């Protein structure tokens, strides 16, 4: 029997959060963490609350803190997460808890909105599409794949301390995705908005974001590229 400890908190009725213990029979299978949560909800306690949707690592809904490390419950196998037959599941750190494992992601989305995550091009639209060379298109690899699960930003202490000012690794990865796009014409305006002491420069390169990204992306490298672009712009 797998020992599972789940963070429970209902701000409307509970004075403080608590960890609730469950024993789950996995039948010796290497299930995903999401499967265990589904079993708890179906067989033990229907009130356990969490987000999930695609269950295959595409939608980014079920970002959770699993045995101390952020990840997507649907693609994290028990063999990767469980230590000493114990599984501890908490909500993503640093964001307000709405209920149990569901967090309020307003601050995360506000930072994403701040970087204007859309192509800005004022030249007349061509009849079919704006073309890129294969080389320019390749510059977006490792950037566009982000699913905004927030695993990276909520593992970043700089985002914990200044979630209203530091854009965070997810937002900055997307900021560079548009800075690197040959079709975007707002490079200078984008860089000007990132040049304060908080938006980019609160990143101290500890690479928690790289460590937890379920898609294997590297926000720290993207942030380094943004710094280089800011330097070149100032030079």
């Amino acid at each position: 029997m797998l020992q599972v400890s789940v963070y429970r908190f209902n701000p409307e009725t509970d004075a403080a959060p608590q960890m609730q213990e469950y024993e789950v029979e996995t039948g010796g299978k290497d299930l995903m963490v999401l499967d265990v949560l589904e079993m708890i909800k179906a067989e033990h306690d229907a009130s356990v609350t969490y987000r999930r949707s695609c269950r295959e690592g595409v939608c980014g809904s079920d970002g959770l803190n699993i045995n101390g490390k952020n990840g997507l419950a649907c693609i994290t196998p028990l063999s990767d997460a469980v230590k000493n037959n114990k599984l501890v599941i908490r909500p993503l750190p640093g964001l307000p808890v709405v209920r149990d494992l569901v967090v309020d992601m307003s601050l995360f989305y506000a930072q994403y909105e701040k970087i204007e995550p859309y192509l800005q091009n004022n030249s007349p639209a061509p009849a079919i599409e704006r073309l890129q060379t294969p080389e320019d298109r390749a510059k977006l690899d490792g950037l566009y794949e982000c699913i905004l699960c927030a695993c990276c930003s909520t593992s970043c202490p700089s985002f914990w301390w200044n979630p209203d000012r530091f854009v965070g690794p997810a937002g900055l990865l997307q900021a560079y995705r548009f800075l690197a796009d040959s079709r975007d014409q707002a490079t200078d305006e984008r860089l000007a908005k990132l040049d304060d002491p908080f938006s980019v420069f609160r990143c101290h390169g500890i690479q928690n974001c790289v460590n937890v990204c379920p898609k294997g992306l590297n926000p720290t490298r993207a942030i380094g590229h943004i710094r280089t672009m800011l330097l070149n712009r100032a030079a």
Partner: protein
Amino acid sequence: MVTQVTSFSRNGLSDWLIQRVSSLILLAYFLFIGVQIATGIDYTSWRALHDTTAMKVFTLLAIGAYVSHAWIGLWTVFTDYLTEYMLGPVGNVVRPVLQIAVVLALVVYAIWVIHVIWG
């Protein structure tokens, strides 16, 4: 509320650049001083070394680097941990008080060094 108004240059790139350049200056200074001490130095030669204009300029450069490096680093620490977000309303009292204390200490250090080497 945490704002950038008390940051060293009020610009992220400048602060970042100043912190890195100042760290190189400090590294060079302490390596130089370390080598002097390691190779054996007495009061007379120590005094002679610091009486040269080049060494005075180097020391002045180092204290400038020290002040800017310390302020940028501590400002970052203060605006991370001593905020209303972290401590509640008291954060908006503790942070400015500590910032003023640090500024005063750094100004005193700088004046003291200038007095020692040029006085």
